[in-house]
């Protein structure tokens, strides 16, 4: 018990004092603060703004009328890099520098090493996300002169929690790579490759596969509505194999209470579109599969890390 605690304390100290963390910290704060600043300006100049009107604090993180990308998109794109940066060399660097065999020969369980490293990364991520979210909210309170409603506060809290899970998943992927790949430069590159794959390439692949299996005529209006729905459903399911899609969809529902479905909205059936926002618990029901999907992916990643690491020789160095 005290062993894993010692590991967490050391790793956390390493993270917080590292140049790497300083860079991540600056980027996240820059993006968050810029978004909040332009969001506040937009709300002040146009108080009746449709998205900002009923949920001003949510709009600080989602508005696209500012000069910077919304904070939720920033986390979606940049979150994996944060997680990878905290994890990609956690194991292989210790092996290469000969500290792993010394660490593993202490009276600790072998899994304490990866658990400790993961938990230290998790705390770092939580500190980063919670602090910037609090600061954005604070800027809103000061700039707008109002406090967030309970509904807004809950949605922001849920968004923070999902962001932490999402970034931790990429931390877990980073740790797994640091176990599977010997050289830190290679594991960094492998991490970036996975990030590009799950952020971009999977979208092309999903489109290709979908159009092969459920071909559609051009223009789109020539198709049977059933085909269109089937095509869309398949494409969506395929892209949901990416944690990034799961996160994007979950945050859109959470931060835009008017979004009531994640399927295709058939434009010629207006009775399906209701402009009124839905309640938080309805939003949560809608994204519950996404959250469990992210957590399941994290558990799978961690299990593979665990199995690989437990069976590894703790040789003084790779060669």
């Amino acid at each position, binding site marked *: 018990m005290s062993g894993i605690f010692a590991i967490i304390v050391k790793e956390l100290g390493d993270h917080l004092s590292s140049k790497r963390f300083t860079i991540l910290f600056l980027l996240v704060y820059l993006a968050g603060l810029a978004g909040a600043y332009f969001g506040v300006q937009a709300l002040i100049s146009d108080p009746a703004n449709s998205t900002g009107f009923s949920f001003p604090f949510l709009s600080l993180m989602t508005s696209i009328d500012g000069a910077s990308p919304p904070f939720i998109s920033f986390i979606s794109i940049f979150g994996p890099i944060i997680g990878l940066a905290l994890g990609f060399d956690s194991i292989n660097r210790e092996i290469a520098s*000969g*500290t792993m065999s*010394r660490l593993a020969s202490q009276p600790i*369980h072998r899994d304490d090493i990866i658990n400790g490293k993961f938990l230290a990364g998790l705390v770092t991520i939580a500190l980063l996300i919670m602090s910037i979210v609090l600061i954005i909210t604070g800027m809103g309170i000061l700039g707008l002169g109002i406090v967030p409603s309970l509904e807004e506060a809950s949605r922001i809290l849920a968004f923070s929690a999902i962001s932490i899970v999402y970034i931790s998943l990429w931390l877990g992927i980073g740790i797994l790579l640091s176990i599977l790949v010997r050289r830190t430069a290679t594991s960094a590159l492998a991490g970036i490759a996975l990030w590009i794959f799950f952020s971009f390439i999977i979208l092309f692949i999903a489109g290709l596969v979908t159009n092969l299996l459920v071909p559609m005529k051009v223009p789109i209006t020539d198709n049977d509505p059933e085909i269109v729905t089937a095509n869309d459903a398949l494409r969506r399911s395929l892209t949901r194999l990416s944690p990034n899609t799961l996160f994007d969809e979950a945050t859109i529902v959470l931060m835009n209470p008017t979004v009531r479905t994640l399927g295709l909205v058939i434009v010629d059936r207006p009775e399906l579109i209701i402009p009124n926002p839905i309640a938080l618990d309805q939003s949560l029901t809608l994204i519950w599969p996404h959250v469990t999907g992210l957590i399941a992916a994290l558990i799978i990643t961690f299990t593979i890390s665990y199995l690989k690491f437990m*069976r590894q*020789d703790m*040789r003084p160095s790779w060669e």
Partner: protein
Amino acid sequence: MPDTVIELDKLTKAYGETIAVNELSMQIEQGEIFGFLGPNGAGKTTTILMLMGLTEPSSGIAKVAGYQLPRQGIKIRRLAGYLPENVGFYDDMTAYQNLLYTARLNSIPRGESENKVTDVLAAVGLKDVSDKKVGKFSKGMKQRLGIADVLIKEPSVAFLDEPTAGVDPEGVKLILGLIRNLSEEKKTTVMLSSHLLYQVQRICHRVGIIAKGRLVAYGSIERLGKEALKGGDLTIEVQLAEKSESRALLEDLRSLPSVKDVHRSGSALSVRCGEDVRPLIAKKIVEQGAQLLEMKLRDSSLEEIYTRYFRET
């Protein structure tokens, strides 16, 4: 009756086709310094890794202090210290901080650990550089710090993998002294690996020689020396005064019982024989009127051990 602390029974480790350690059986008693010797790739490190629970045996039994590996590895790691070969430290932390981390991992209470770290750093002669980042340490300094890292645990068993590698003569003396202290004062059982027979034989009570994963010799240095010599020849070196040797003397010596060969270079003779015939040689020299300056039996036991067990692989 000394207790057996380390016990191996047909311990085997295979990496695919390669058998790194092959049915190794031996016992090491409490307080003993055991030298585990062998050429590169013999399986020394692999054996130690199995004894610390850092790699899983393929078959066979390994026990340390009564605990069985790898199942009770954590119990063994609580009481055993390990110095890896090419020991590494966190480069951006000081020597002091590195050792403090080890103390924390061993649940040494905060109040005690700071004094202990200072003490062990002084013991290995690193007191003056305790606040220097380890990244700036030389190989030998890191090796000393590795010893300190073992000492801080106050282990009852210590596995030291090439403790003197890369250390200057002064440092070797210091490290060997510390190891001897551990055994004599703290009754720590020490298993140290090396391929430098000459360097470690001074402090080892017993040695085991491993080659290609198999234990080829096991026992005290004297016994191994005698065994290695069995059936071999002795060499007696004779130094005569200038120009006092003669053809007749050489003939005489060759005719002595068990003498196989006599070599002459200047006034030095070297006599190869089956047993120690120094008294007979002295007598002949005197009879021939030559002047004997010096005569000695060449101490070749270590060399014999070395060539016999190390080079044959």
